[in-house]
């Protein structure tokens, strides 16, 4: 077309006008730290593995998960999921059921026999791990994955630590526990059961270990002084739960009293019920809001018919009953005796008053510092003695499986660096992906899927798992409720809302780039990014 001068123009000639020069601020793509990731004691990249789960790519999701945590099927049952407590989605409807999806992935992996990613090439180093509880298993896994040779020495008959000897079957079925442990053994980790370490230094020197991780746990029950006519009647929670793994279950009688207010007390009381006790009564010296046990544990216990006697302490244990004293909270919230007493029928009393670590194996090791029964470690989980690291219940007061797994990973990284004569320095953390930085409008309304709960009768009489898992549809649904806080999930919003076509779509999996030649810095992309993965910064010039 021989176009008339000036009146008629060729298409697309506006590209010569680089409107990027208008900017005073510019958008940049950022990756922010989602609160779930930030809170997870095991340091999982939750948002990362949910991303894979959402598209049904469960194996990649599991691989992403197990890059940090080797025990997802277990975690999906026993973890207290602080991630869900921090999840931004609760500001819309309810937190994402991260725990349920983790369990689904763990179970799926067991079902399909997935094995861990191949370990790094052998480093030639040998590391001893004492204790096959969660801390030890985690440390062993990460060390192996980094290419080291690992041997776990476990004093008990079976591996698992508190996962086996503390957590009841109705919370963690043993076949699941066994499967995840077996996978670790198949990974090339040497596991020596019924192998107690009495003298650490000797063992290390004799067997040529270059470093050591201690995860011996805390399985010495604390005792309180209770005058008892029949000493056999007063038991401790640790041994009761331990003995649940034996051939014959412990005999607790028809009326069981559990003394204490923690999760262990709940576990024992619920176990007692299942063993046939007509009544399981928890005696606790303060009130419900002061109880250290997690609220849902208390709830489940109450549903199962456990009764709780608040503001009470046990004065003495008689033949067929106990005497309790009523307490009252003073202005500091501490229980004070009132002088009022009551007798309660009881066939046995189980003390659940806390646990201590058995540190006898460390007697000859110089440089260690022990405080309040806990071994002191630095940020890299190293004790006062170089080359000896520790984690789990023996090294911290937040005693959960998840924390222990996190300790194991941290220690493994530190050990790996130490073996090379270096120091592990964690990379700096990204900015937090807070809810205020997001645009939640774009998330569809999707209420949380409720996991199926076993009916009360079955709960009271069997050790079947109380809380069921999600089937694939629901796990997928739940995974897709994740808002991907702070991390681009390719929703195309920025690409779509830019009035100047200044966002370039790079392709599936490759996200986007800004075309700064034309970007005017209006900031609409950042405002409409659902997950808050775009930041507006001042223009340099």
């Amino acid at each position, binding site marked *: 077309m021989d*176009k*008339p001068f000036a009146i*008629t123009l060729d298409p697309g000639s506006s590209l010569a006008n680089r409107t990027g020069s208008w900017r005073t601020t510019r958008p940049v793509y950022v990756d922010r730290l989602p609160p779930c990731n930030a809170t997870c004691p095991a340091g999982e990249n939750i948002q990362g593995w949910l991303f894979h789960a959402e598209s049904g790519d469960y194996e990649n999701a599991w691989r992403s998960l197990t890059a940090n945590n080797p025990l997802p099927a277990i975690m999906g049952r026993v973890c207290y999921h602080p991630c869900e407590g921090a999840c931004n989605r609760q500001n819309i409807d309810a937190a994402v059921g991260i725990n349920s999806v983790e369990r689904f992935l763990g179970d799926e992996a067991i079902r399909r026999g997935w094995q861990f990613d191949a370990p790094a090439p052998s480093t030639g180093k040998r590391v001893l791990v004492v204790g096959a509880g969660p801390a030890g298993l985690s440390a062993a896994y990460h060390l192996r994955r980094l290419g080291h040779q690992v041997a776990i020495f476990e004093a008990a008959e079976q591996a698992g630590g508190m996962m086996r000897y503390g957590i009841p079957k109705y919370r963690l079925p043993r076949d699941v526990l066994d499967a995840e442990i077996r996978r670790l053994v198949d990974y090339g980790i040497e596991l020596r059961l019924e192998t107690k370490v009495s003298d650490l230094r000797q063992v290390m020197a004799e067997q040529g270990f270059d470093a050591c991780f201690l995860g011996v746990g805390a399985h010495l029950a604390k005792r309180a002084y209770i005058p008892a006519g029949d000493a056999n009647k007063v038991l401790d929670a640790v041994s009761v739960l331990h003995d649940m793994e034996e051939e014959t279950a412990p005999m607790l009688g028809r009326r069981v009293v559990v003394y204490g207010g923690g999760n262990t007390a709940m576990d024992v009381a619920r176990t007692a019920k299942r063993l046939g006790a007509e009544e399981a009564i928890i005696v606790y010296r303060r009130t419900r809001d002061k109880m250290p046990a997690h609220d849902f544990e208390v709830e489940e216990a109450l549903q199962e018919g456990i009764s709780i006697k608040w503001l009470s302490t046990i004065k003495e244990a008689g033949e067929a009953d106990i005497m309790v004293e009523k307490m009252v909270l003073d202005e500091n919230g501490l229980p004070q005796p009132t002088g009022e007493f009551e007798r309660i029928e009881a066939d046995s009393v189980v003390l659940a008053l806390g646990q201590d670590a058995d540190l006898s194996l460390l007697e000859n090791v110089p440089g260690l510092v022990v405080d309040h029964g806990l071994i002191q470690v630095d940020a890299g989980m190293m004790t006062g003695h170089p080359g000896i690291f520790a984690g789990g219940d023996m090294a911290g007061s937040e005693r959960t499986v998840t924390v222990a797994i996190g300790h194991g990973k941290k220690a493994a990284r530190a050990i790996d660096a130490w073996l090379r004569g270096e120091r592990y320095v964690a990379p700096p953390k990204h900015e937090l992906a807070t809810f205020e930085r997001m645009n939640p409008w774009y998330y569809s309304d999707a209420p949380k899927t409720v996991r199926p709960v076993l009916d009360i009768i079955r709960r009271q009489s069997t050790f079947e798992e109380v809380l069921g898992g999600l089937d694939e549809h629901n796990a997928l649904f739940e995974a897709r409720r994740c808002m991907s806080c702070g991390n681009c999930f390719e929703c195309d919003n920025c690409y779509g809302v830019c009035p100047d076509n200044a966002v370039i779509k790079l392709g599936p999996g490759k996200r986007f780039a800004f075309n700064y030649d034309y970007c005017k810095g209006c900031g609409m992309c950042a405002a409409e990014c659902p997950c808050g993965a775009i930041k507006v910064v001042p223009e340099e010039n």
Partner: protein
Amino acid sequence: MLKQIEGSRAVAEAVALCRPEVICAYPISPQTHIVEALGEMVKEGALTDCEYINVESEFAAMSVAIGASAAGARSYTATASQGLLFMVEAVYNAAGLGLPIVMTVANRAIGAPINIWNDHSDSLSQRDCGWIQLFAETNQEALDLHIQAFKLAEELSMPVMVCMDGFILTHAYERVDMPTQAQVDAYLPPYEPRQVLDPNEPVSIGAMVGPEAFTEVRYLAHAKQMQALERIPQLAAEFGSVFARDSGGLLRTYLTEDAETIVIAMGSVLGTIKDTVDAMRLPENGGHSIGVLGITSYRPFPLAAVAAALKHCKRFVVLEKSLAVGIGGIVATDVRMAVTGMGLKGFTVVAGLGGRAITVKSLTALFEKATREALDPVTFLDLDWKAVNKQLEREKARRRSGPVAEALLRDVGVVGARNY
């Protein structure tokens, strides 16, 4: 084929022969018969492959034509007076965009006061908009000019107005020779646009042009009209060879070779003027040395041709059906530009405004005076001085003198021109 038909009908049939593709119709006297005829032809299937659109205003009429023309269709509409003014924004737009629309203007006076009869004030008010303006002298020339107009417009990519006197030509039944379709097809090829809205070759038409290029665009429009000055006579000649008659061209002279006085005019009044001049040349009537110059192409204005036509005369009279309020004559001013430096004496005569009849008697008296150079520079032919002076007195006497038109009508006693 010879026919005795109304001027409007003749134009409609000629336009139909040109194979228009889009016709926009909005009624206004005195062009309405043209679009009515075309509408009938389309509806009954006599005119095929043509979209006939009843638009809601003249502004819409020109706008629809703009859209249609930009999309590559041969487009046509007709209007007059108020209607032309109502579409002025679009008229300029069509010219500025270079769209070859052809429009009939059935010349009519512009209000206020509202007047439906003939004068040239409407199209002349648009003399600067960039459209080519051709004035027909007879019904035959009116229909012929439309055929030439399409060809001219499409060659140059410039819209063309064909002006014909409202009522005098549009509503007169005269004998015309209507061409055949084959003849028109031989003369007028299908429309090949210079620019077109085509998804296969997208362009943006109608950009905003700033100071850096606006002058150039306007110059190019002017240059195009200069091109037209050459092309118009050529087209008329080509027309002559196909249709075997003389129609169009820049201007036409009548007995001017030896004339001392030349009368210049446009449109149908030329017929009356020629009759007058014929009589005046007779020895028994004084044997006046007087001739006539009829301007056909008003825009572009044929400066050189006019100068050439007036080369040997002593004086000229421009008789126009138009008035430039505050200065005098419109056509006269253009003519004066043509004869600058030629030392001629010129007289402006404003006649026939609002359809007032121009009689042989009045013209004879007028021209005689002109030959004696006894005319004022500007003369209003047959002005009723009594009524005018009475009104001036009235206005001097009272502030609330009332509407001028109503006052004059009371004095004059009838509305508009009397035909006698």
